[in-house]
Every structure is written in structure tokens, then in C-alpha cells.
């Protein structure tokens, strides 16, 4: 091969080698892959026959629940997602939408929510001992709030004067 041909080949190889490692290196860091998805047990709220799990797709749940008393919608900053809060008779359902899919993010039961209760029978007005009896002693207590974490769900019992005055299920990252 003539020298000029060798040089040309070397130049082409140099450009290719410069581009290829960068892109293949980058391909190994896909941001769209979920990091080691685990199937974890999660706490769920049940109302009637409808079970609401944290992180579940919202569409079938919303269909089963029927029309909400009110719906609040908020775009995340710079349209990076959308949050909604659906208010039903005795609880609120919070969802977030990212990449086109609406998923359950939270359920909130407050003191004015009538007789809504967790599947284990704890409701607003229940005592701290009732919570511990239902959920055990593996909780964290912050400022009077009892907090249980099960998989991707954090279940919080807000207490005032020794009684539950609000209950919240929240989607949390699995650790």
C-alpha cells in the first residue's frame, strides 16, 4: 500500500476510534433502564374492592373508583411531569405522570375523612397502641409520627395527643 494510502487509513481509523469508544461507553449508561428492578412487598390501601398500591398504574384504579369529588392537577416545574390529586369521599389519591404513564404516588386520609381505615383496621382516632398492634414495632418515630417502610411504600400515622389524626401512604424509592 502506498504511504499516502496508509496515512489516509490511519486518519480514518483515528476518527472512528475517537468516536466509537465514547458512544459505546455512553450506551452502557442507559438512563432509561431501571436499576435492578426488584419485586418488593408493598403496603396498599383498600377502599371497597379496589386495592391501591404505591407505584401502580393509576388508570385501572381511577376507573374502578369512579368519578372523584374533585381533581387538582399541577405541571411539574418546566413540564417535567404532572401531578394530580383526586379527592374522594374519605381519602385523597395522589398520582404523578412521567414518560406518559400516570402512577400512584400517595394516599392521604385526614381527620375529616370519615371512616376510612387501613386494611389492618387503623383509622383516624385510633390510638398509638392500636397502630403498633396492627403493624408491629418496626417503625421509626419522628415528632410523634409513626412511620413504617415496606418495600416501595412508606406508611405514616400522624399523631396528636396519642391519637391518629392523619394517615399517609407514600411511594418511596426501594433501597
Amino acid at each position, binding site marked *: 500500500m502506498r504511504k499516502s494510502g496508509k496515512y489516509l487509513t490511519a486518519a480514518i481509523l483515528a476518527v472512528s476510534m475517537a468516536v466509537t469508544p465514547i458512544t459505546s461507553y455512553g450506551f452502557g449508561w442507559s438512563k432509561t433502564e431501571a436499576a435492578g428492578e426488584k419485586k418488593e412487598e408493598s403496603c396498599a390501601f383498600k377502599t371497597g374492592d379496589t386495592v391501591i398500591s404505591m407505584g401502580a398504574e393509576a388508570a385501572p384504579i381511577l376507573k374502578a373508583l369512579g368519578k372523584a369529588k374533585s381533581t*387538582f392537577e399541577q405541571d411539574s416545574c418546566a413540564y417535567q411531569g404532572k401531578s394530580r390529586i383526586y379527592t374522594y369521599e374519605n381519602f385523597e389519591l395522589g398520582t404523578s405522570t412521567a414518560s406518559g404513564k400516570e402512577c400512584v404516588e400517595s394516599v392521604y386520609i385526614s381527620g375529616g375523612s370519615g371512616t376510612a381505615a387501613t386494611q389492618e383496621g387503623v383509622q383516624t382516632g385510633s390510638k398509638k397502641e392500636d397502630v403498633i398492634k396492627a403493624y408491629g414495632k418496626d417503625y421509626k418515630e419522628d415528632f410523634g409520627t409513626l412511620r413504617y417502610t415496606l418495600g416501595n411504600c412508606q406508611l405514616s400515622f400522624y399523631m396528636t395527643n396519642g391519637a391518629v389524626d392523619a394517615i399517609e401512604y407514600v411511594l418511596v424509592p426501594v433501597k
Partner: protein
Amino acid sequence: MKRKKINALFVLLAAAISLLVLWAVQRLLVPKYMGMVVEGNLTGEYYKEVPDHDVLILGNCEAYENISPAVLWREFGISSYIRGNANQLMAQSYYLLEDALKYEVPGVVVLSVSSMTNFSQDNESYNRMTLDGMRWSPSKWKAIQATKMEDEHVIEYIFPLLRFHSRWKELEKEDFTYFWDRGTVSHNGYYMRADIRPAGEFPAARRRSDYSFDPRCWDYLEKIRLLCEEKGISLILMKAPALYPAWYDQWDQQIARYAADHGLLYINCMKEPEAIGIDFSHDTYDGGIHMNVYGAEKVARFLGPELLKVPGVSDRRQEEALAVRWEEKCRVYDEKKAEQEEEFSRLGYLKQFYQGQ
């Protein structure tokens, strides 16, 4: 010898071509933020400015959507710039201030305190929007280190191609149109919206077990205060008018206490609705969460007299060179406002931000 020189030149040429190709590919693949989401341009636009601002405003969307620098100039002669971005964290505000102070020393920094409510980022996109536009400096390095998420890597900030390589499948016309230049999307950092969506009802504020701010947010607030003190800058803390999310009384009290302890002015716009003249049926584009241009202008009119009381801030409308620059800025501002008003009046929405609902 001659042959060796030719070989060396050839290798250098090949290397230069490789780098040029990589640079061009990277420039093509990084997001241009010229569609519905423009915030990715806000940080970088600051460097196009002549650094001569008496007021720098820092913070998240409560900063860059709620105050009109054009009105601060036009009605008070105050030259200002908003260094804000989507979900800009306290740490990022600190490093952006540190960065800005390499170019100018304002008389006042106005800091939006709503980002005291969370230290950590919840979406990588916000970090990219805030940090990619920063010029490389120790401030940028430290901002990345302080706020990158668990699955972010510093090298992806050094070489954005590593992060955005997969966008080759999503390239749009704007990636080519804005390959060289994107123009300017903000008005001295202000994000203009002239559409109107009246405030409706909001869910009741949820109970919290703990109303304390993250200690790291306090650390960066203190760093901002000390940096301002060191440079002789007056720091004003501000909570913008927003009906949602809730700004709990417990949070407000903590900020008020901090301000009192350090002799700082703290303005909670939510406690001054009549003084500001906010009409939540007209002055918001998203139902009461952010101000539109009408609300932002009212907030600016409310802040102006307070800012003029600060030593080092004065009415500079008689300074010819500055007045000429601001005349052009105000012309562009008025033009954009008229354009958006016409479109909203005709369509009932703004095409650029319409999500098809």
C-alpha cells in the same frame, strides 16, 4: 527528518479532525430547550449580559417567573438579573451567585426561599437545565458535586455527549435550526407568560411530622448570607406569591426568625396581597402556582421601592449607556408581551406551551 515532521503533522491533523467531529456531534445532540421547555437556556444566557446589575435574584421558578426586571428598570431605574432555573436548589443558587460574583458585585441579592423545602434533586433534568449552562469553573464543579443525583456522573457534565448520545433517535428540526445559536429566551432571566388561568381550588395542605428544613439547606443559606456580607451585598429573603404548594406557617416562622437574627429583610408576598395588588383570577397562568406577566409586574412594582432603600441601589435611568441597553431590552420585552397577548386572545392558549389538553 522531513518525513517525521509530515507524519507528526498528519497525526495532529487527524486528532484535530476527530475532536471537531466529536464537538459537532455533541453540539447536535445536546437538548436545545427551544420548544415547550426553555429553562435549559436560562443559566447560560447570563453570560451574554454586560455585567452591570444592581440586583441579582436567585432561586427556583418562584424567582424566574414572578418578578419582572423590565418593570424594575422602567419604573425604578434598577438594573437587575434573575439567575434562576427550574427546581434550582439552594446549593445551586449559592454556586451561581459565587459564579456571578466573578463578573460583578450587585448592591442586593434577592433570594427566593421556597427552595429551602428540599435539599436534594428529584429529577435529573432539573440539574442538567441548571448546571449545563454554567461556564466551567470551580463553582460549577462544586455545584455538580453538591447536587448530582446518585446515578449522575461528573464525566457526563464534562462530556455531555455521554449523557445525550441516545438523543440521536429523537433529533428534531430545532436541533439543527439552533445548532449554532439559540437567541435569548428570557428577559434578563425572567420567563414571560402572558396567558391567564384563574386560580381554582387546591387540596388542603397535608400534615407533616416535621417542619424543619434540611440542615444542608440552612448551611447554604448561611453561605449565601456570609458571601453577601463579605462582598458588601445586602441580602433580602423573599417568598413569592403562590397559592400552591403550601408554605406552612412553621416554615415562614423559621425564615422570619433567621432574618430577624441576622438583620435581614424578609418579604413574604403571600402576606401582602393587597399591597401588591395580586388578583389570582387574572395574574397567574397556571391556576395560582406562578405569576404570569401581569402578576410579575405587580411584584416588581412592590419590590422596587424596597430595593431603592438599600445603599448601593439607585435610579440609574440617567446613565446613557445603561439606558440605551435597557431601552432595547424593554422593546424586546414589550414585543414579546404583545405577541403572547395577541395569541392568547386569539387561541385561548399559547402555542409554544400548549400540551394539547
